[in-house]
């Protein structure tokens, strides 16, 4: 690659070297020269709305805006002359003539800061009710920087009603300065197109077409608009008025297998808000509604189990950890390996999963480790985990020529994959979707096949060439379309299939999965699996799965040997002496037992009452790692202390295990667990590249009392539906129901 020639420019008498193709504003920012601006932002296209970034350039007429003027070699720029300062003050005054400015010029401004943090503060002390008090008001900072202390224009209050009908965030367009950041982020970054300017002149606002709510207009509630808003016009419902966060902790989202980076905004012992990380190489800050808005309400739910509890005829009694551990150990000691069952959630961290399987295998001596996905998938578990273990890296989408999305919709989850697909389609890749209802990718697709799930298998076979042409009569109306797409797919070399959660609801899911694996092998397709079992790869790698040893599935040297699993003797219906459920809350599906230990953060919604409740810490309260859908090890970092007496899952398992059989585990901290894991997975958890997974061949037979297809909410964490604890998710679930009936990924 030839090195681009640097340009030499003079800013404020400093001669600096800059890369070409920058704007003056970007060039100044790279050299720490401050130019005020309210509309320009990294990652967003230039717009030139706020006019605050005006500068003087020799040879250019007037005062060009630095955010829209590209640098040229030898340019002489002045950013801070007297004339410019006056001009900026005047521009800012005009901006503020439509923005309630009391908080900017209020004489009690300094005192007000001392009162921040109480909800009633604003109204009581200053009579001001505007600011969401999250100290992210860029308008305030710019006003201070420009040094404006009064305004000579009367303020025109536009008197728009405050819009509070939608979940998660409120909109007060009286505070809006029409910088267009939200419109640009919605259209050019998220490629969603919900927002646009409406009307003109003084009645201009931002919003969807007509007076539809954001929910109706197809808003993803990704919160990108709230993140970029430089004023208080858009504010998060749950975190406004809480004040300034003390610290920011970067962690990994465990709600789905993408594993986006979340920047938790922490104050004291509370996660107030979550912001995306636009510099993350994995997700580019494209987090979805779950990561953006569904974390604080879940982890600080008032329903959390505070202390260990034991069942008595009169209800649950609080007990100490010592008593709880002693009781669990007593019940578990001497239990027959055959009559023990451990159920673990695939949303636990690797460390938790590792200790869980060690507990079952080395303490109890049993290989009875199951997971709720066995109930969801039944006899199809084997092919499914095989598909997951052979899935590709997410970035194969970036240079794909053809994408086939099956049962996939990225409105409310898997946002980075969805946006990657949309970008691919915009740059010219052929996108074809198969779903039972309209999806958010249809608009950009070459062809959207909307048909019942029972036809998917035939359709997938036809399109990818996995099966003979014989099934064509099934689709008389699409004959031409199918032929056309077959032709395109045949010619393309970089092809990607996205298998969405809808696939798991198709009756012939095994057949489809087999077809996918076949075309991966023979047809050169890459496969990305978007499924709801976040750390499933970690679960397989840690061996927290019946019949699979720790680390066995990691294919370090690229030998495609394959791993043999065996679920044919695993019986999920047989009664047990003790069942230990870690992060699993569908207790009604579990077999009968004498004693049930329930280790989770929130009480189960099932009818069945466990004998012992152990409060577990959540992903914001404990450290560890997860392995995402493409095989990357990602860190989960502790942001706050666990709620009341809750403890990390590995700690609880370790304590009980130590009580039963001394000297097997002895983990004092999470690092010692990681050291133990590193014995089988070299370099864990510091492995930088993707872990390669072997093929996995699980021997299966249809389990006795074949598990029923479960119908529950779309989004769960540790078995608890998000809508049960996060208010706004309920509105979203209802929306999905309305659009798709029960079709979209109904498991």
């Amino acid at each position: 690659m030839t090195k681009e020639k640097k340009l030499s420019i003079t800013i404020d008498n400093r001669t600096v070297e800059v890369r070409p193709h920058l704007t003056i504003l970007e060039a100044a920012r790279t050299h720490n020269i401050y130019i005020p601006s309210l509309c320009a932002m990294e990652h967003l296209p230039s717009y030139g709305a706020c006019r605050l970034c005006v500068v003087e350039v020799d040879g250019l007429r007037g005062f060009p805006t630095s955010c829209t003027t590209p640098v040229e070699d030898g340019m002489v720029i002045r950013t801070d002359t007297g004339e410019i300062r006056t001009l900026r003050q005047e521009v800012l005054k005009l901006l503020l003539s439509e923005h309630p400015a009391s908080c900017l010029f209020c004489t009690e401004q300094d005192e007000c800061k001392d009162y921040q943090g109480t909800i009633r503060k604003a109204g009581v002390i200053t009579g001001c009710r505007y600011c969401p008090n999250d100290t992210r008001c860029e308008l305030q900072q710019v006003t201070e920087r420009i040094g404006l202390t009064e305004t000579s224009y009367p303020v025109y209050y536009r008197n728009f009603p405050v819009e509070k009908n939608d979940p998660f965030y409120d909109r007060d367009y009286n505070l809006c300065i029409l910088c267009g950041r939200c419109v640009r982020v919605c259209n050019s970054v998220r490629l969603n197109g919900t927002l646009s300017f409406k009307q003109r002149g003084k009645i201009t606002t931002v919003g969807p077409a007509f007076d539809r709510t954001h929910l109706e207009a197809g808003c993803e509630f990704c919160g990108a608009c709230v993140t970029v808003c430089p004023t208080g016009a858009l504010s998060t419902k749950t975190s406004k008025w809480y004040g300034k966060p003390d610290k920011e902790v970067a962690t990994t989202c465990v709600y789905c297998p993408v594993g986006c980076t979340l920047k938790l905004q922490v104050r004291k012992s509370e996660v107030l808000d979550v912001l995306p990380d636009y510099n993350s190489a994995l997700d580019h800050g494209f987090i979805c509604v779950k990561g953006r808005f569904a974390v604080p309400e879940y982890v600080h739910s008032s329903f959390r189990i505070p202390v260990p509890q034991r069942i008595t005829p009169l209800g649950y009694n609080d007990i100490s950890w010592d008593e709880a551990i002693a009781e669990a150990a007593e019940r578990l000691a001497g239990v027959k390996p055959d009559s023990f069952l451990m159920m673990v959630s695939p949303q636990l961290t690797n460390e938790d999963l590792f200790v869980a399987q060690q507990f079952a295998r080395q303490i109890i001596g049993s290989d009875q480790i199951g997971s709720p996905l066995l109930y969801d998938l039944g006899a199809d578990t084997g092919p499914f985990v095989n598909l997951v273990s052979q899935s590709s890296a997410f970035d194969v989408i970036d240079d794909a020529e053809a994408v086939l999305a099956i049962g996939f919709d990225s409105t409310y989850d898997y946002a980075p994959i969805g946006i990657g697909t949309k970008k691919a389609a915009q740059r010219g890749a052929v996108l074809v979707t198969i779903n039972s209802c309209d999806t958010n990718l249809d608009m950009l697709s070459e062809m959207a096949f909307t048909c019942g799930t029972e036809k998917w298998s035939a359709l997938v076979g036809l399109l990818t060439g996995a099966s003979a042409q014989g099934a064509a009569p099934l689709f008389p109306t699409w004959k031409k379309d199918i032929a056309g797409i077959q032709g395109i797919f045949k010619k393309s070399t970089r092809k990607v299939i996205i298998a969405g959660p809808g696939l798991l609801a198709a009756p012939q899911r095994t057949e489809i999965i087999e077809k996918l694996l076949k075309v991966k092998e023979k047809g050169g397709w890459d496969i990305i699996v978007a499924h709801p079992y976040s750390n499933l790869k970690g679960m397989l790698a840690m061996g927290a799965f019946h019949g699979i040893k720790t680390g066995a599935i990691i294919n370090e040297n690229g030998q495609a040997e394959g791993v043999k699993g065996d679920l044919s003797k695993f019986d999920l219906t047989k009664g047990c002496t003790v069942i230990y459920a870690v992060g699993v809350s569908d207790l009604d599906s579990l077999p009968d037992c004498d004693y049930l230990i329930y280790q989770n953060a929130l009480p189960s919604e099932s009818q069945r009452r466990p004998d012992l409740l152990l409060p577990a810490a959540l992903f914001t309260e404990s450290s560890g790692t997860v392995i995402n859908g493409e095989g990357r090890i990602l860190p989960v970092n502790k942001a706050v202390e666990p709620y009341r007496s809750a403890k990390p899952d590995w700690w609880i398992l370790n304590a009980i295990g130590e009580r039963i059989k001394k000297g097997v585990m002895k983990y004092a901290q999470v690092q010692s667990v990681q050291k133990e894991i590193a014995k089988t997975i070299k370099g864990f958890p510091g492995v930088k590249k993707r872990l390669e997974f072997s093929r996995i061949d699980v021997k299966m037979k249809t389990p006795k009392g074949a598990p029923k297809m479960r119908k529950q909410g779309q989004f769960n964490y540790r078995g608890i539906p998000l809508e049960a604890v996060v208010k706004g998710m309920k509105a979203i679930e209802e929306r999905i129901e309305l659009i798709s009936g029960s079709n979209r990924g109904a498991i």
Partner: protein
Amino acid sequence: MYKETILKKFEPRLDNILYILHELQDNNEQHYVSKEDLKLCADYLSVPYSFVHGVATFYTMFSLTPRGRNIIRLCDSPPCHLMGSGSLLDYLKNKLKIDVGETTKDGVFTLELTSCLGVCGVAPALMMNNATIGKLTPEKVDAILEERRKSL
């Protein structure tokens, strides 16, 4: 359906959006672009619905509400204003018993204001549909209205 014929006349490129919207509006009996029209246009051009709505609400020549058979656009720019368009507006409002932006009950006239029509030499002026008429007086306005009613 006539709407599809209109769409087909233009290539599905974004720079045709104004032509399409104009054509849709002109061919609508009530001289407006309906929600369905916006949706059709958005789908045809593969742009978000909200974008087309933003364009249609930005330009005053588009109406999103049904209008009468005849659209009166009275100029309210300074020269016309100086020559008495203010009192003409009051006269029109009283005569038609509607406010600016409204349509008469019988659906014959819609009253709107417009910026300069470029005929300041004959101010005050108005546009009756596509015809520009200058040197207005209340009597002349009466005659114009009468003429339009007769031609129904």
